């Protein structure tokens, strides 16, 4: 079970009156097992939203609730996948994945079992004893996803997880994530500036305004995905060719563009 709720959430860096206003009254509800992507112009505060759910940053006004409880500090119930992977370089792949399980005090036999499953899930079986620096960027991000998934968190927070990957690897990872979401559905908050990525992955796409950011509109993708049966296509490019996909993408694109133009003038 995992839900996230932003209730009129605001964030100001520095003094309440003179400080830097990053977020202004964000309201958004993500229900259990729902995949929501937030897109927005750069600097709109979308990453700040995620960091407040993770407990890395405090809330200046309003509330951020996970499972109806206000977030006070980071915790293993809210696993984060970072853009820059943030793997522990002195630990092997296996040790990285095992790290959170050890914090939970899970016995060795059970840990080994869970880590083996996570390695298999992310097709990392043959890399368990490698160090992060020996792996490609895509592989490292697989490890980071496995490290988050293995904890069985109530929500999964992904901060532009494929932003640091090359185009081909990114596509593979996007397909992988869709597969993962089918096998093992989670509540996911996904931050991205890629509109196509958001439409391809998410059940709903929340569009943010320019700074100080707030939610401009939320677009339902899931109903169209099921209606048009996107999931029957194996390849991402086949989905992206569909008229229904293009239509949604263009709609979000235009909405974002208005914000970018407004920000520039």
């Amino acid at each position, binding site marked *: 079970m995992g839900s996230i709720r932003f209730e009129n959430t605001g964030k100001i860096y520095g003094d309440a009156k003179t400080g830097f206003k990053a977020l202004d009254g964000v309201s958004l509800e993500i229900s259990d097992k729902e995949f929501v992507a937030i897109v927005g112009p750069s600097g709109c505060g979308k990453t700040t939203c995620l960091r407040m759910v993770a407990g890395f940053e405090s809330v200046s006004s309003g509330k951020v609730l996970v499972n109806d409880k206000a977030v006070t500090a*980071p*915790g293993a119930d809210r696993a984060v996948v970072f853009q820059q992977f*943030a793997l*522990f370089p*002195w630990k092997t792949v296996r040790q990285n994945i095992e790290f959170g399980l*050890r*914090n*939970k005090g899970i016995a060795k036999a059970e840990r080994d079992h869970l880590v083996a499953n996570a390695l298999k899930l992310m097709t990392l079986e043959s890399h368990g004893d490698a160090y992060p620096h020996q792996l490609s960027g895509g592989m490292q991000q697989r490890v980071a996803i496995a*490290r988050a998934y293995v*904890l069985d968190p109530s929500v999964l927070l992904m901060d532009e997880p494929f932003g640091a990957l090359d185009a081909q690897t990114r596509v593979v990872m996007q397909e992988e994530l869709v597969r993962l979401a089918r096998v093992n559905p989670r509540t996911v908050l996904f931050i991205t500036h890629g509109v196509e990525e958001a439409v391809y992955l998410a059940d709903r796409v929340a569009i943010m305004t320019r700074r100080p950011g707030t939610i401009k509109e939320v677009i339902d993708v899931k109903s169209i995905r099921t209606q048009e049966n996107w999931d029957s296509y194996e390849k991402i490019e086949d989905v992206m060719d569909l008229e229904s996909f293009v239509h949604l993408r263009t709609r979000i694109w235009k909405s974002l563009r208005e914000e970018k133009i407004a920000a520039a003038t």
Partner: protein
Amino acid sequence: MQHKLSFMETVVYGLIGLAVFLGIWYALPATGLVPQQFLPGPATVVERMTVLATQPFAGATLPAHIGYSFVRFMSGFLLAALIGIPLGLIMGWFRIVDEIVAPIFDGLRFIAPIAWVPFAALWFGTGVGGPIMIIFAGAFPPCVINAYRGAKQVDPQLIEAAEMLGTGHLRMMKDILLPASVPSIVAGLRVAAGLGWQSLVGAELIVASTGVGFMMVQAQANVATSTVMSGMVAIGIVGLVIDMLLRRGEAAIRRRRGLAE
């Protein structure tokens, strides 16, 4: 831009430096510019060292004196590392400990290790505790400072990653701050070893009845300059070996992490 030197070039340039140094050292007493008694030449010192290797002076042979010194050094050095590194990490993690400890520590670390000699003599006499205390005074600050700096410079994202994985304070220091700070800590250990080894000989001049420093001060009383010089050469060589070992350790750690040398 300077080009990177090959291994052979490094060796050759090193040998040139050594040859010039030995040449001057040899020439000064040999030409009579400096009397033999004031500055024994390298040959005299080597000859004296071979004698000291088997014949006791001031109660023991040179290797035995070095052995005594080395055991003391290791005791003080390890004690400094075992207390200093955890303290530095704790200061780096808990802001409040930092605020409490920093002013005292910053004042104390400017007191030269040798300044503790009167107290070392008073508290421990010529027993084993005195020299260890002096080495500790020399080696402790670099251990604390470098562990502290290392902990402060850990990539904040790694700390966040550990936090979201539910890591507690103890494990944060042991499994994140400590390994992330290893390069800084090893650099600190090298400085600590240097300062500790230097301080030790100073300490032994006064508060010991064995060790290289003690041997040297006894030799000085007999105006046996070649024996004093033998001690100096031994100190230099042992110091070099200690530093080389620590450097090897550092390089091995960096290689394992995939960092450039």
